[in-house]
């Protein structure tokens, strides 16, 4: 056993020596390989974490959201719908929502304006919304008046802004923010608080505003709301209730919480455009490597194998040497790539992906991801990179078997 270990060490010694002979080529190969693993692993870490985070955060999303669709577009909903919905069997309670978008010409950003739900609605919701694994979700905060964030009351003429908005506009508590209302008037609203930086992943672009100001800003009549949220008696009946709503109100489009969660489950799916581009580029590069490796041995390598065999190496020793050659490069590249990816995604906030994720948006949330790591995915990545590369390195060695040890004797030129 000892001599077996010693033998492997000798072979590794020799393999490293011969790898170092072609420094530029092999270090270049290692760097490229590391880069591929880095990109794939970053992608994996990022998408997995964001999915897990979305699943945890959005557990408290509305059970059913009912929109009104007119000619394929969202339309304002008459408030009468509320009574119709409330009468449907299985519906515990329903509440109107008022929200919309505001385009800020100054910084070219879109904000989400939202009227916080009234206290009564939420108390009702919290009665039935049992969120698993989150014992604190029904904490005292929910009983506070809802127009209040961190002890600051949201009153007419005031707004509470998300941290992203504050950062982008460089405004803080006490500042005024002008808005252009539907009829061309300027409304100056006072910022009374900002939502925490920690919550940016859900609140970065939010502007909390009172119902009165919201209607004044957009000119929405009292009898209309944006959409409605519904709480059902039995959460397992959500689809049934949604179907009933659809039947009763043909113009309505109910969206159940499961659908919201599933949307984020499938976000950044590998079939997504950019993902498939990155992925196929990586795979292609890898295939080129593998092909380069498998395409055979150079004259120099054949000569070397001839010498090794002449001085007493068996074919199996040569195969072991090639195995280590593949293993050294792929193991080093794998671990370096994964470590770099981890630092990239969880410590540096994915700067490599940022330009693509940002897209055209002027307001980009500043969030740090919770490091959810899927060991299964890591293992898959390991087998998808280390294994094929090592195999591709060994495969051409069948040619080595055809190199006779006496080829070294017949070699006369230099």
């Amino acid at each position, binding site marked *: 056993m000892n001599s077996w270990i010693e033998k492997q060490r000798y072979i590794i010694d020799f393999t490293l020596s011969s790898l170092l002979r072609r420094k530029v080529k092999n270090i270049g190969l290692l760097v490229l390989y590391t880069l591929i693993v880095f990109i794939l692993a970053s992608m994996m870490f990022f998408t997995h974490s*964001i999915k897990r*985070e979305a699943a945890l955060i959005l557990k408290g999303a509305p059970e059913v959201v009912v929109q009104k669709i007119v000619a394929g577009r969202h339309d304002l909903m008459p408030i009468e719908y509320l009574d119709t919905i409330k009468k449907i069997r299985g519906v515990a309670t329903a509440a109107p929502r008022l929200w919309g978008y505001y385009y800020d010409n100054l910084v070219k950003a879109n904000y989400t304006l*939202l009227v916080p739900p009234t206290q009564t609605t939420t108390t009702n919701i919290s009665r039935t919304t049992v969120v698993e694994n989150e014992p604190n*979700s029904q904490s005292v905060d929910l009983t506070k008046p809802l127009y209040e964030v961190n002890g600051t009351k949201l009153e007419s003429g005031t707004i509470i802004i998300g941290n*992203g908005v504050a950062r982008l506009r460089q405004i803080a508590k006490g500042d005024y923010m002008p808005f252009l209302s539907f009829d061309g008037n300027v409304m100056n609203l006072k910022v009374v608080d900002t939502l925490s930086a920690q919550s940016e992943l859900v609140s970065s672009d939010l502007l909390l505003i009172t119902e009165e100001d919201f209607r004044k800003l957009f000119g929405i009549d009292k009898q209309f709301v944006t959409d409605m949220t519904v709480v059902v008696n039995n959460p397992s009946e959500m689809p049934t209730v949604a179907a009933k709503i*659809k039947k009763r109100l043909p113009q309505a489009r109910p969206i159940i919480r499961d659908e919201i969660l*599933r949307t984020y489950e499938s976000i950044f799916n590998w079939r997504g455009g*950019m993902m498939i581009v990155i992925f196929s580029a990586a795979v292609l590069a890898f295939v080129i490597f593998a092909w380069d490796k498998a395409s055979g041995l150079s004259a120099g390598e054949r000569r070397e194998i001839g010498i090794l065999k002449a001085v007493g190496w068996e074919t199996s020793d040569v195969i072991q040497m090639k195995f280590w050659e593949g293993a050294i490069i792929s193991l080093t590249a794998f671990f370096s790539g994964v470590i770099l990816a981890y630092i990239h995604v969880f410590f540096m906030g994915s700067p490599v992906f940022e330009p693509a*994720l940002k897209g*055209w948006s002027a307001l980009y949330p500043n969030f740090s991801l919770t490091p959810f790591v899927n060991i299964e995915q890591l293992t898959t990545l390991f087998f998808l990179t280390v294994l094929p590369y090592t195999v591709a390195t060994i495969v051409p060695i069948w040619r080595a078997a055809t190199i006779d040890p006496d080829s070294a004797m017949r070699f006369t030129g230099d």
Partner: protein
Amino acid sequence: MRKSSLFFYSLITELMVLSLLLLYGAIDKNTQQESLQEKAMLVETLQLTDLCLFTEARYTRHLSQADLNTAFQDHPVSLEHFPSGSFTQPSFTGMGSHEQLD
């Protein structure tokens, strides 16, 4: 030092760094529970439906609330006007259940 030792030391170092990172991640995950809970709470109190990932268009800002007629929903591989659309995919599940309701 022997080259093979150098290789094994560097491999062990890398393994250790990785396991430290994973360990740190596991601990950090617990400390970040607070932040997760804060976000979850905000979602619940404000009745939010989506993550604020892409603010460039309404159908990317509220992915799950997008109507079925916006560009995003056109075709799974259609080229997007907005780059973020190419990262995401339409919720087929939502479309499915919607068709059933029609």
